[in-house]
């Protein structure tokens, strides 16, 4: 790594985003690039795994080692990549549909497995790329072509879900609040374990409820309060308060030990000899 020479624009590819003008994903991505650069990473040691949907295009618009997989499976893919080479900085990015609907099972298990990686969820509370169906985080009354009277079901509460699964880091940001967004991502990257950052990333085309104005009005910035993210009880209160939308680092377990550290993985799992590894004949003798 050559952190002193890396500028966040080094993480920008020459591909122009096809996101709608004003899409929250621009701000989300800028913060990711800045946070990666500010934490001493460079495109060559960074592996970004993207999901499916508008958010999933992020790996194309950034410059780093990146993989764009199938819908809902970005987290296990990132886990495999990290465990095989713990030297990599692994960041998984996807939407609320990817993480909290089709990939919800992986989400819970990724949280409790606590592999050292950052999970950025671009939460716009809508399916944008398929043109406007309700998503797992849509409000109960949100009318869409597939929910003419609203989804009639409670929205997923990602922070509460992750907290109950034993999360070691919970952050929430707003794509338009660049500084706070970048700071939270930096803390997430520095965290030793699985860090969830739920980013409100408004869809300007299909969601007329959860708009920039709505979030500006609704968000309570924990950075402006005396909230101590290492205080479990205080974090629990924030996480379970579904009436208030918080911004900032909500919870951080300072004693978190990542799965990859607990398992003591070899850094050179990718290097192989030309023949069978030394000592493997002893395994044959075990069968005698």
């Amino acid at each position, binding site marked *: 790594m050559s952190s002193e020479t890396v500028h966040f624009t080094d993480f920008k590819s020459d591909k122009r985003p096809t996101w709608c003008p004003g899409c929250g994903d621009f701000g989300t991505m800028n913060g990711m690039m800045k946070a990666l650069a500010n934490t001493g990473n460079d495109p060559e040691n960074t592996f970004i795994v993207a999901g499916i949907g508008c958010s999933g295009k992020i790996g194309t618009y950034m410059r780093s080692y990146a993989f764009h997989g199938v819908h809902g499976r970005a987290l296990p893919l990132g886990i495999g990549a990290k465990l095989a080479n713990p030297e990599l900085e692994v960041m998984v990015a996807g939407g609320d549909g990817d993480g909290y609907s089709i990939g919800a099972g992986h989400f819970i298990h990724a949280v409790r497995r606590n592999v050292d990686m950052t999970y950025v969820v671009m939460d716009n509370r809508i399916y944008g790329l398929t043109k406007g169906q309700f998503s797992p985080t849509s409000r109960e009354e949100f009318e869409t072509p597939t929910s003419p009277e609203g989804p009639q079901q409670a929205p997923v509460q990602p922070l509460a879900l992750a907290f109950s699964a034993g999360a070691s880091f919970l952050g929430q940001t707003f794509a338009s609040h660049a500084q706070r967004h970048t700071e939270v991502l930096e803390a997430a990257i520095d965290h030793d374990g699985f860090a969830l950052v739920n980013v409100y990333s408004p869809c300007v085309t299909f969601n007329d409820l959860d708009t920039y104005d709505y979030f500006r009005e609704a968000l309570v910035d924990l950075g402006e309060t005396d909230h101590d993210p290492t205080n479990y009880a205080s974090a629990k209160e924030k996480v379970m308060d579904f009436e208030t939308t918080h911004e900032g680092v909500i919870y951080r377990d300072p004693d978190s030990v990542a799965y990859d550290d607990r398992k003591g993985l070899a850094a050179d*799992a990718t290097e192989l000899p030309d*023949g069978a590894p030394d000592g493997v004949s002893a395994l044959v*003798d075990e069968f005698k």
Partner: protein
Amino acid sequence: MFEDFNWAVGGEAGDGIDSTGKIFAQALSRAGRHVYTSKDFASRIRGGYTAYKIRTSTDRIESVVDRLDILIALTQRTIDENRDELHDESVIIYDGERSWEAEIPDHVTGLSVPLRDLAEEAGGAIMQNVVALGAACAVADFPIEYLDSALEKRFGDKGEAIVDSNCQAARLGQSHVEETLDVSFEYDLETTEEEYVLLNGDEAIGLGAIAAGCRFYAGYPITPATAVMEYLTGRIEQFGGTVVQAEDELAAVNMALGAARSGARAMTATSGPGIDLMTETFGLVAASETPLVIVDVQRSGPSTGMPTKQEQGDLNTLLYGGHGEVPRFVVGPTTIAECFHKTIEAFNLAERYQTPVYLVSDLALAVTDQTYPADEFDMSAVEIDRGKLVESDELSTWQDEDGRFKPHAITEDGVSPRALPGTPGGVHMTTGLEHDELGRRTEDPELRNEQVEKRARKMETAQETESWEVREFGDPDAETLVLSWGSNEGSIREAMDRLAADGIDVRFLSVPYLSPRPDLGEAIEHAETTVVIECNATGQFADLVERDALTRVDRVNKYDGIRYKADDVEAAIRERVADPAEVSP
């Protein structure tokens, strides 16, 4: 007396049947005898009926027969289930002091041994099966020292006291038969100086994976593939690797894919239901040109089917599963030793062609413990070929004019260079979307064609340059040609020996490569009759053979959940030789 000897222990699930059988198999192996085992078991933790069966001989054996010489029966059902396999010289060892009253068939000798009482005398009722093993040693005239040695292997890590009391329990069983009952039998299990190893197909796959440098395994428990994961756990770590028990098969295959992108040799193993779940990602592995080995240990389907029963019903899904057109390798070991060798080959194919490999095994291979000389697993012969993995100093050849690395570069052989994350100068992305040479999404018709053709070219290169040898047995000029795949090889070979003794010669090609596969056309043309034997109802391999050779073949199918025995194969071939089936060309 027969040259081979057939032994079984049976009872309810939870009676320790498996472990008891394995101990006796290990004792026979340590006595320099060949062993081939099978299991009757059900998908339940307790109750029902389960049995561990051993066929042993001083000669090499690779199949089971319908004959039992000694049966240790812990339940009446064990006797009833095996009634047809018992003969005039058979001996049943049972505990007549227990609450069930054994009904012993008239022609069979029943030996009542107070298994539980003797076990308690030795230190605990839990050792009653070991008492029975001691009794079996007495009946079979088998030196009990080999049983001691197997007990030491099994219980050694629990301390000397446990080993000693087990050896004591075995001796009480032995002396009860020899002294108290004072009967003698004609059985005499010879020992030899040969040194064998005893392992099953799942273990052989795990061993092959470690030998091939596999460093990452992710899986989800499923019968009959779980033993691969259990084998690797605690062992792969000694070689710098790791095992992850994933939350489901979708996660397992994606974790393995992620690890492979990082550059580790990675594998997952499952059975049919898991293959169904992994199929979407299988397409992604192929589209992103990532080397990955996916093991399918087949069991009876469809749906949950018969989870503990044999079938070779997944061939079509392995050959054709997945939307779109997905290049792939399908390699199918035909013996337990081949499970080891083909696993190593699968890793090399995967990396050489940056393409997923299905390694297809089956339940009969997975649950059978079989002896081999240790040098069958010769580690000095293992070669690891990582294909076009490029280091930093070679990268400039594979960059475009703007210095961008091309992970899907168009090449003559279809294989592109591969740069692992962390390699300076190799930064790239890739995706399951159709992409250009740089790995970036495209829907340009020309670029699309280039990538489709490039991926297809890899398979053409493989077809032309790799060796797709079949395993050939019998008389090359015989009128009857038998073709098969998977675990049937052993039974077919034994049936051929018996037929040859009767002057019926057969040529047998055991085919380990399903895609790409060898050209069987010439062999089929050379024969009068071609018979394809497989464990499924529709003849999936026979369909392939017919399509490739543009001809019709005679099909022998078995789909009752039980593996072929040599008896079944012998009967089927005799019938066809006597009366060749009318198969229209």
